């Protein structure tokens, strides 16, 4: 155990797990609750990262988080607008916005594909000044990101129990019923996607400050990674059950995913291979229940075939 896990690896897995948990929660809202495959995620994450980096570089690390949240929500709004008002298929709407965001992100970063934040104040450097000398010590980053995730998880749990939150859940659960309950699905889808992407944007800005850099390609594959986290959580906790359980499961999934990655890196799997690994996790996790059913059916078919053959033999 000790050889695989050092304290610092444990810490950074926790930190990254909590930060990326926001993207997993975003997918929980769009994919699980609204039943929409929202492919804005990749570009939106980079957008949050870029916006966050620029504001941080300008000396406003807190405003950076707020702006990332707001611009993320805007990206979600665009995707929602395309699918609800202009009849674009939801997956396509996400792809279109995602593609457009690449250029926007470059523009935000001043047409440079990398922005460095070395020497800039970040929420983490501020946190270190504040918490570094207390009993929390070296765990200040863990404490900060955990606090952020817990606050957001609580707020999300509260929100999903409000009338508006319930309307959003019903939209994904039974769209027809929603219309006949006088809820406007255009409105609920828009609010849901704005909310989801604001979390993705916030996560991007936190990563920018955490890594002290923003990279134009940082969001690539983010949707798959978040989906992998979501599915790991669902496999452990189940995707039924109360909202609080499911939200907790999503966060747990994200943290576990980071532990898996940390172990993989430790066992010298090259970092470039990680996206392949997460793709495989998602594919296997989604395919497993289906394949299991198929295999069970084939088994019964085969047993039936054997029985019939034996009967034919007996009769002969």
């Amino acid at each position, binding site marked *: 155990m000790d050889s695989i896990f050092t304290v610092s690896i444990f810490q950074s897995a926790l930190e990254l797990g909590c930060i990326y948990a926001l993207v997993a929660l975003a997918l929980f809202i769009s994919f699980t609750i609204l039943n929409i495959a929202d492919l804005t995620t990749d570009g939106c994450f980079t957008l949050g990262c870029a916006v966050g980096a620029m504001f941080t570089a300008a000396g406003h690390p807190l405003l950076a988080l707020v702006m990332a949240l707001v611009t993320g929500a805007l990206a979600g709004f665009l995707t929602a607008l395309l699918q609800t008002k202009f009849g674009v298929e939801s997956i396509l709407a996400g792809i279109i916005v995602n593609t457009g965001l690449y250029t926007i992100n470059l523009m935000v970063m001043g047409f440079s594909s990398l922005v460095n934040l070395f020497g800039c104040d970040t929420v983490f450097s501020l946190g270190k000044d504040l918490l570094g000398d207390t009993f929390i010590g070296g765990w200040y980053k863990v404490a900060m990101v955990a606090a952020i995730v817990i606050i957001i998880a609580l707020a999300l749990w*509260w*929100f999903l*129990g*409000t*009338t*508006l939150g*319930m*309307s959003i*859940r*019903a939209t994904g*659960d*039974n769209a*027809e*019923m*929603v*219309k*006949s*309950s*006088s*809820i*406007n*699905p255009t409105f609920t889808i828009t609010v849901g996607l704005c909310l989801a992407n604001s979390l993705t944007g916030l996560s991007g800005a936190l990563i920018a400050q955490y890594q002290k850099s923003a990279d134009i390609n940082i969001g690539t594959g983010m949707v798959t990674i978040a989906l992998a986290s979501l599915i790991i959580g669902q496999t452990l906790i189940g995707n*039924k059950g109360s909202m609080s359980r499911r939200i907790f499961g999503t966060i747990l999934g994200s943290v576990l995913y980071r532990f898996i990655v940390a172990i993989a890196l430790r066992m010298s799997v090259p970092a470039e291979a990680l996206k392949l690994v997460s793709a495989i996790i998602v594919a296997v996790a989604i395919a497993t229940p289906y394949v299991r059913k198929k295999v069970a059916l084939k088994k019964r078919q085969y047993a039936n075939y054997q029985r019939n053959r034996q009967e034919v033999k007996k009769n002969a």
Partner: protein
Amino acid sequence: MLRLDNISKTFNPGTVNEKAALTKLSLELKDGDFATIVGSNGAGKSTMFNAIAGTFIVDEGNIYLDDEDITFKKEHVRSRYIGHLFQDPLKGTAPNMTIEENMALAYLRASRASSKLFSRISAKDKDRFRQQLQLLGMGLEDRMKQPVGLLSGGQRQALTLLMATFVTPKLLLLDEHTAALDPATAEKVLELTKSIVAERGITCLMVTHNMHQALEVGNRTLMMNAGRIVFDTQGEERAKLTVQDLLEKFRAGAGEELDNDRVLLS
């Protein structure tokens, strides 16, 4: 109350699958009318309901509710005052949400204030839901925290009926809403329907394939064929009508394309 003025709807116009489902249909309902509707499969009964509920906008004609022209109103707007139940009990409720959450959504129709957007289900709401559920006599009041997906079809349909009438609608559309239930449950849901409609004086349209029901329930019977209303009876004329008479009209109207499987005599 409700007035359909020469409404038409053609599906897939200009293709080989073109189908004129409603052809210049007109109908007027008075306040408190409870009309049953019969008609062969494909006569356009569900299509008429969908036109009224706003699932699609009619190609031609106008729809008025309480003298307000609602022809171009969206479905979710119309649903504030129109309740719509389907044959399929799965359609009216959100399966992964609990009974009380489903009821809270239905209750939304009462409160349009946007201040309600961020309120959660209160203890008072729960009391109100429990009282309503007790009326069903199905023990659902003790299962309010369970997802609706766990209920049987009959229980779900009864719940849907409750939800549709929770906030009294101006108009209630019942599209064979007991057809998928076993006879005993169907009877129970129908009794419930009759008592709720009578108690609150809700104007109501009910599609049925049961000729006996068509004459017994409500105060008016309509027959549809080929996208229009071909027979409309109420009062004394209706009281004298027998199931046999109605069947004959049905045969004449449907031009022998009567589908015996779905016409129940009793």
